[in-house]
Structures are given as C-alpha cells and as structure tokens.
C-alpha cells in the first residue's frame, strides 16, 4: 500500500516544493517534514515527502539498486 521512492528536492517555496527523480520533476508537499533544504533527499509518496534521507541512506540505496549490475559490468543509466 506504499509505493514511495527517494527523490531530490530541487526547489522550495514554503510547504510546496519540486522533487526530482532521474530528471523527472513533480510538484510535492513538505508539510510532514521539518528543516528540508534544497538538494536534500526525501521519500516521496503520492506527492508528499514522508521521510528525509541522509547521504548515507542514498548511498546504501544506490548500492542496492545498481550494485547488482556490477557483476556484468553493464552500464546503468544513472
């Protein structure tokens, strides 16, 4: 019941913001988080940011998603 993905915040205007994932941008809402800044990563569900991710979290996620490609040496579109 919970499709949520990590996104980078690229613009903020009060509780409204713009999130970006792989070059796709979408208006989103930050009311449920505090102290979000531009370039922070958040977890986005149905247009709302529900959790902040640290750089370590993002690193772990990227490793999980792309690390499995390492064996084949196939380039990933990232």
């Amino acid at each position, binding site marked *: *019941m*919970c*499709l949520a*993905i990590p996104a980078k915040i690229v613009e903020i205007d009060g509780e409204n913001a*713009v999130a970006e*994932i*792989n*070059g*796709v*941008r*979408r*208006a989103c809402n930050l009311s449920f988080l505090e102290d979000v800044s531009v370039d922070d990563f958040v977890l*986005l*569900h*149905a247009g709302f940011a529900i959790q902040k991710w640290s750089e370590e979290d993002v690193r772990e996620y990227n490793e999980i*998603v792309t690390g*499995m*490609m390492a064996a*084949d040496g*196939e380039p990933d*579109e*990232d």
Partner: protein
Amino acid sequence: MTADRGDKGEVVLMGHGGGGSMTDSIISGLILRELGNPILEKLDDAACLTVLESELVMTTDSFVIDPLFYPGGDIGSLAVCGTVNDLAMQGARPRYLSLALIMEEGLPLADVETIIRSVGDCARRADVIIVTGDTKVVETPGGARRAGMFINTAGLGVRDPGVDVSVSNARPGDVVIVTGTIGDHGTAIMNVREDLQLESSLLSDAAPLSGMVMALLDRVPCVHCMRDPTRGGLAAALCDIAGKSDCCVKIRERLLPVKNEVNGACSILGLDILNVANEGKAVIVCAAGDEKAVLDSLRGDELGRDACVIGSVSDAPAGMVLMETRAGGERIVDVPAGIDLPRIC
C-alpha cells in the same frame, strides 16, 4: 489557414461530413494542399495503383488515441507510423496509405490542419503517399471533455518473394534484439492523458521504421522475425513470439535499454516498463552469429542507435517468456491484462 467557408469556419461541424461544399473545403483546402500527389489529386472514388513487384502486403489500423496531441507527436504522425511499421514488420516496403478521418463536431479546424500537416510530414519521411481517403463527422458524445478524432488507415506495401519474418520463425539458439529504448511512448502519453503533472522531457518515440528495416533486410536477409512492441509493450511482443514460435524467450533485465527519465516516471507511477507501449521500436530475432551484423546495420540508422541484445530463445518452457531480474532471480513476463495504471500500492 482555415477553410474559407463562412464565419463558422473555426470548428468542425456536421456539415463538413455532408459531402457538399463544406466537405470540399476540407478536402481541397487542406488535404490536397498537405498530402497532394497525382493519384490523390484525381479524387476518384478509388485509387488505381500499379505494382510491379510480386508480393503485396496489406494492413489496416485504427487510431483512437486521446489526447490528440502529446509531446513528440500527434494522432496524425502516429497514424502514418503505426501503419508503415505494421508493413515494415512484415519485411514489406510501404508504398500507399489510405486515410479515413472521423471527426467529432466541435473539433477546432486548426487542430485538423495541424494533424493533416503531421500526416504529410511523416508520410514524406516514410516515403509513402496517401492515395485515397474519406472524411466523416459525428456528434461529440455527451460526457466528453473535448471533441476528438479517429483515424483509420489501410497500408499497402511490396515485398520480395522469399522474405519471411513471421513471429512464428523464432528457433532455440536465436538472439533477441531490441532496436532502442523502451517505454518512451506510453509514459509520455499517460502523463498527458491522465494529467499526472510530471515535468520532464518525456517524448513519444513514434517514428517510421521502414528505412531502418529495409536496410537491415538488405544486409541480413535471413532475419528470423520482427515484431513492434506497441500495445502491451515489450511483454506483449515477446509473448507473441514465444507463443507463435512455441519456444521460450528469455531476457535479462539488466540489458534492457531504458532512458533515465522513463525509468524515473515509471518508478514514480509504479508502472512495469515491460508493459508500456512503444511506437518507434522493433524486436528483431535472428540466428546466433548474425547479431553483430544486425546490430551494425541498426545502429547505422538514427532510429536504431541504442539497439542491443536483450536475450535469447530456448526450447523450454515453450510458449513462455522469462526474465532474469536485476536481483538475479527469475520472473515470468506475461501479457498485461489492460493498460497499467499509476498506483500508490
């Protein structure tokens, strides 16, 4: 330039389908202007065509896409590409198209003009001509948000005898290739149609593939099969091949070419990229050993720059499509029941 017929010239009216001077204003004023050629200009009830090559290939298609205009194209260019590609997938060189328009009353004539212009541009690019056509007007249904248009086409192409690229020709050991990135068209359309408000440079990939395919068949005449992954996406095309060839198609997820942004959009919306429609791509199955020549040929064309191997054919389990996932597991790829919709769950 709009029809010079009175002050109601801005939108399509029932009268435009009446067969009289209002209809003529669309035909002479717009269609002949944009699509004119010696055969069409005769405006006979039927077109007389001379075909010297021995095998005729014919297809028909209807286009009901909503919205009519979307990033990367419109219903007009889609109608030409879709028809041309159906012929190309059979190894035929497309030559002649028919074009029947069913327009809903209230559709702005300026839109009709843009669409016909797209038809013309795409036809020139695909080196085909529109030889016959029809226009009708119907009432816009009561709840509709906007007036629309449907297009029906028939396409005629010619083929050298001995060319056989039917989807039932795949054999164990064959290599499966896709001519470029997948998921472009469907995600671009869905974003606009459902007003999901994703901002991106997502573009439909609709394009006429005949040039690339003819060049390929010239170089590798013994390609086994071709299929374009339109409705139902790559999943439907591969299932068709596996089913009709009674073989197993096995692909590897990590080999699938996907644009970054398309990946992003599918992640946000929860779409399975395998099920998303493509309108400018083809699946090519060739014998092992031929793949280098196939890839060289495809990559020499602008539309095949990202062509790559995505899998192979084996004998069992027959009729099924399997995918080795990024995680190293395996899943079945099935024909989607309908169009995938965005999900929160």
